């Protein structure tokens, strides 16, 4: 942990790739999807930034942001309730004709005046669909060493199945891979359909604030929408755009199945250590009591948050805060989100329950490894 980092501010796009997980974002957005038993996806990004001393963070929300605002509050739990900088949630302007931005350029254009009066030299731009305990200072150092105008973090990994299904012409939620020559990006592929490991962009960008302002004003005047397509891709010969290879642990949420699998991967202690081991991840505090195991509850290979009461049998599961598992219930291979109740003798396998679901006693609900059953929030199956 370092002291306050005067060098960089951050801008987060919490709605990116919402369309890939429609069921999970019915009443929320990508950034506020529950993950890893007690967190929301954005907690990892905010904590990573704060752990690097970056404490001027703007979150440009687009829609369905009420749950995110409830979660973030004043930002105090991430130490972002600050006099200077801190957390800044930017909702769409409610003008006569309410405008909701489509691409990053429009969104950034709406905060250009804000950017102009900031003091930090650099801007970090990031989506919130990737879970990582990311070292932004290492990226910043690399950016300075290479003398880049723009640095893009990427991970060498295959394009996920969920993205492969996107229409090549889709204008929502574009994804990008990079062609590199000695670290410099010489081509950005938009929605490619290649198999095998790619230089897959994490959509984490580092750019000098004044350059960003210039480029946004220019692009905005010409009606451009997408930062990557309209600013970066078309100027690779004049702008020095570099790739920054990230080798740390990541979980990228690209569809419901990847959400399921990425949670389950954390049941491996090595993965748990890789994600949480080196710097703390902060989240909203609920003041739950410790989890209580009653009688001979049988629990194996499971991650459990506080506030649960477990009387039944649980195996290979992720339990969020305040989950109740009744006597005789059998819950396997499932993700049970906060305040869900599984009543006695229910039998559950390969299920994702959203928050505050009730599964009645004796009910049976079974999916399979490639298609877990999803139960939406507040649903009562009695």
């Amino acid at each position: 942990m370092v002291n306050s980092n005067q060098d960089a501010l951050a801008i987060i796009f919490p709605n990116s790739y919402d369309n890939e997980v429609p069921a999970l974002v019915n009443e929320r957005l990508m950034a506020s999807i529950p993950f890893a038993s007690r967190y929301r996806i954005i907690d990892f990004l905010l904590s990573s930034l704060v752990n690097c001393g970056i404490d001027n963070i703007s979150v440009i929300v687009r829609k369905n942001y009420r749950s995110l605002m409830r979660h973030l509050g004043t930002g105090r739990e991430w130490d972002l309730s600050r006099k200077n900088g801190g957390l800044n949630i930017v909702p769409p302007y409610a003008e006569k004709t309410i405008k909701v931005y489509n691409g990053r350029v429009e969104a950034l254009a709406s905060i250009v005046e804000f950017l102009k009066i900031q003091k930090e030299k650099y801007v970090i731009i990031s989506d919130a669909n990737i879970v990582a305990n990311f070292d932004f200072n290492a990226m910043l150092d690399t950016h300075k060493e290479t003398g880049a105008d723009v640095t893009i973090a990427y991970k060498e990994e295959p394009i996920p199945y969920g993205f492969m299904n996107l229409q090549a012409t889709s204008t929502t939620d574009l994804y990008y891979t990079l062609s590199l020559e000695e670290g410099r990006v010489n081509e950005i592929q938009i929605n490619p359909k290649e198999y095998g490991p790619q230089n897959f962009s994490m959509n984490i960008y580092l750019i000098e604030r004044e350059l960003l302002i210039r480029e946004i004003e220019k692009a905005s005047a010409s009606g451009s929408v997408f930062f990557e397509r309209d600013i970066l891709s078309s100027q690779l010969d004049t702008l020095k755009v570099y790739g920054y290879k990230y080798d740390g642990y990541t979980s990228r949420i690209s569809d419901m199945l990847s959400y399921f699998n990425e949670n389950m991967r954390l049941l491996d202690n090595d993965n748990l250590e890789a994600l949480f081991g080196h710097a703390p991840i902060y989240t909203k505090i609920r003041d739950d009591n410790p989890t209580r195991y009653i009688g001979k509850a049988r629990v194996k290979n499971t991650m459990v948050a506080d506030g649960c009461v477990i009387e039944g049998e649980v195996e290979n599961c992720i339990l969020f805060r305040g989950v109740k598992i009744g006597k005789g219930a059998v819950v396997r291979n499932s993700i049970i989100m906060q305040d869900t109740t599984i009543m006695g003798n229910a039998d559950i396998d390969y299920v994702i329950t959203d928050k505050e679901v009730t599964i009645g006693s004796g009910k049976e609900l079974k999916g399979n490894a490639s298609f877990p059953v999803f139960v939406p929030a507040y649903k009562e199956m009695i």
Partner: protein
Amino acid sequence: MAKEMIAMILAGGQGSRLYALTQNLAKPAVPFGGKYRIIDFPLSNCVNSGIDTVGILTQYQPLVLNEYIGNGQPWDLDRLYGGVHVLPPYQQASGSDWYKGTANAIYQNLSFINRYDPQYVIILSGDQICKQDYNDFLRFHKENGAEFSVAVMEVPWDEASRFGLMVTDSDGRITEFQEKPKQPKSNLASMGIYIFNRDILEKYLREDEANPNSSNDFGNDIIPSLLRDNRKMYAYRFNGYWKDVGTISSLWEANMEIMDPEHSGINLFDEDWKIYSRNSGLPGHKIGTEAVIENSMITDGCRIDGSVKHSILFAGVKVESGAQVQDAVIMGNTVIKSGAKVSHCIIAENAVIGENAVVGAMPDDGETGVATVGPGVEIGKGAVIGPKAMVNNHVKDGDSQW
């Protein structure tokens, strides 16, 4: 603006009978119940009762307690006007003094109390486990037109002589106070929780301070003076769970009792009366494939691969595979190595119990003591710690301590 009632928590106690646990921290800062410290109980009771101004009187080893309380935010006591304040002894123009007794501690902070111009002051103890609505107590105080009220518990007659007892008339008015008498005339034990009218409190504290022969203690000096002057003093009967956790065995017992809310009467799972605490910030706990868990309470950051029965594990505890934990209280970040057997004991924070070591024994082996291992202590491989031992230094491989 005046506050109706403010609270003063006496938190200066050394807790000498908790020896191994209170070498470096005051008794109210002793961890309790998986994710709490003892002081969370009076603090949460205050907030849940609508009291937003609290003074915490510290003296002995205040560092951990100070840091823990911080600005009071975890208890919602970071207020513009009021909030929680840690009040150590301080230097005055007339000289400086340690707190000489419970009454003197409050006396030295009369100016703090007067800043808020309260009608009533509630004096609380920082070393009790209890969920209590102080509004009910205040209502009782007002309805009786009392100048001083004390919360009391009915105790069995044969144990009464261990307590400070309030003898009352049929209206609940206190007529006599007996401190640990041989011949108890009452079975109403003082809980050490008082409500004073502020003017009465100030008058008696000033008189007490002027008396060079006084021990400056509420029980020994203030209450007898109030009785002598025939003040309107009432005893408020409290029926809920209450435990003074001044000894290792009572601390252990209270921890065991919160695992059994159905019978013990202390329920931490009550959404309407939450106990707040400072959060560890660790991810959820992880139960491994070989683990066995029965009747236990486990919190964030734990990694369990061994067997845990009827025990409380604090944040970040590791129980390796093949280790056995039973009837134990294991505080934060302690590691129980594989093959170790840990039973009927309290193990403080950051301790390491080596492979195949044995700490404590179940009472059915003919012993009844609660073994205690202090913070940061390393118990070597194969070492044996007897059921009555209090261990404050590292124990070498294969050694034993009784």
